[in-house]
């Protein structure tokens, strides 16, 4: 049941744009942002000067005023950024959608640009000598990388619910198969098998190389317009939620009675309270997948599998093209590109437009989630005929 006033159906994602994805791309991060935003604006069929709102991740290095100058946007009346890395994407879209729904902005662009594929620029490798933030409690003991932190939760999940290795292999192979159908994916043309997964090197026990997202350069962008401006057949924001469960600290989230009940659980509860739809109505999902166990955790948090049952859901083919819930259908962060999840949102729009490389028949309702291991967010998108 819905609670009071919502943004349901009021805002359309009227334009999408993306650059090439790859390692070591030539253009600068700022130029990549310009290319993706320009493509999204043209896709929406508006003039750059109509854009009066910008939203992005706090991860961005490019100030919004540079993009306004580069692209001829503005004047702006809404500009915001959302924190917590991979938890931010659906939140940035949701905040911009609230601005468009309330008239604070008439046309908003949400964007993500990343040129970080060089190993030396990995965020965890830039850790300072003296830690002031919450990572002071774990990094000095050698728990250094995001994958190490997710491995701790995966190991605990295995202790509580049983083995997940076959399910993780199935996730890696399924997403790679989707990427092989998607010419834009970084791993297009490079299929893998379950045997390849099990033979890949251990990175942080129980997680292997193929449980990790790609290192990518690239950018993607969306244009939000009031739904009544977007034409008859459009993709609208049905619901949006953010969530930060009490006691959660980003990634190294070990200090609550049950860290396996992540912020996704409160995000999901809020999301489903904002719409008449339920998980049973969702036809395609894009779960944040920097590490493959996050898909298992998210399947349970958002109500697609009971607690402890996500591995079986995956092993039975549930996330494949013929499954109950095709997931990460462009290849996701494991096999299309890693833009902290923003390409997942673009793929959800393509599915609802009927333009996906692995198209889910008659997709009318799509879920997109942010990182399960950080304070996060989710979007429910709907095709409006």
């Amino acid at each position: 049941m819905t609670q009071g006033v919502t943004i349901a159906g009021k805002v359309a994602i009227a334009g999408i744009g993306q650059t090439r994805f790859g390692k070591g791309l030539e253009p600068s991060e700022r130029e990549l942002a310009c290319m993706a935003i320009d493509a999204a604006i043209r896709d929406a069929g508006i003039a750059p000067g109509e854009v009066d709102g910008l939203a992005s991740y706090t991860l961005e290095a490019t100030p919004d005023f540079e993009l306004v100058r580069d692209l001829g946007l503005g004047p702006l009346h809404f500009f915001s950024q959302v924190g917590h890395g991979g938890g931010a994407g659906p939140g940035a879209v949701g905040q911009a959608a609230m601005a468009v729904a309330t008239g604070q902005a008439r046309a908003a662009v949400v964007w993500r640009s990343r040129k970080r594929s060089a190993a030396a620029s990995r965020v965890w490798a830039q850790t300072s000598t003296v830690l002031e933030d919450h990572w002071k409690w774990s990094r000095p003991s050698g728990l250094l990388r995001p994958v190490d932190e997710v491995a701790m939760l995966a190991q605990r999940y295995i202790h509580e619910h049983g083995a997940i290795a076959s399910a993780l292999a199935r996730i890696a192979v399924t997403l790679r198969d989707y990427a092989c159908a998607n010419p834009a994916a970084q791993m297009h043309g490079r299929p893998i098998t379950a045997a390849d997964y099990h033979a890949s090197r251990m990175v942080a026990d129980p997680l292997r190389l193929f449980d990790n997202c790609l290192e990518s350069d690239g950018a993607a962008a969306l244009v939000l317009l009031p739904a009544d401006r977007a034409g008859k057949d459009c993709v609208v924001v049905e619901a949006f939620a953010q969530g930060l469960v009490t006691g959660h600290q980003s990634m190294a989230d070990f200090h609550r009675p049950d860290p396996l009940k992540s912020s996704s659980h409160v995000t999901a509860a809020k999301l489903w309270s904002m719409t008449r739809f339920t998980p049973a109505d969702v036809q395609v999902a894009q779960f944040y997948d920097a590490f493959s166990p996050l898909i298992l955790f998210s399947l349970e948090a958002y109500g697609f599998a009971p607690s402890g049952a996500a591995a079986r859901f995956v092993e039975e083919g549930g996330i494949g093209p013929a499954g109950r819930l095709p997931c990460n259908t462009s290849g996701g962060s494991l096999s299309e590109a890693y833009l902290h999840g923003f390409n997942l949102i673009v793929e959800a729009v393509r599915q609802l437009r009927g333009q996906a490389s692995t198209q889910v028949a008659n997709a009318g309702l799509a879920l997109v989630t942010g990182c399960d291991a950080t304070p996060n967010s989710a979007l429910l998108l709907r095709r409006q005929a």
Partner: protein
Amino acid sequence: MIADIPLPSRHGPFEQGLWAALDRGELAHQHCAACDSWHFPPRWRCHCGGALEYRPVSGKAHLWSWTQVHPPVLPAFAPFAPYVVGIAELVEAPGLRMVGSLLIAADDPINRVQPAQLRIGMPLAAVVREIAPGLPWPAWQIIETEQPAGEAS
């Protein structure tokens, strides 16, 4: 001690009692007398609104989870990789957990323990040792490595 690792600042808010105890070679955490709850990481006050006071803890814990970290890692840790890191859940309260190295002997390097020796739930004891000059931090000594009788290996 391992040279050039990232180190925790000792000057964060609400932490003085933690560092004071570690400097004595002891472990203490914030406790709320009003609702008898324990808290870590340090915070302003209890979720019940009660005041928090540092009290010594037993140092007894159980292994809550672990991982073995394989390369590539920060250069300072590279000579030790792969190495195991654990999460110890203190007996004082569910959720009162600390990340730390796992040890057989109190002066072991961080990479002596092997995954095959680990069992989630196994008992641990805190060992406060310097991770840098003048910077004490708890590691966790395995105080029983045998499988309990009757449990398959």
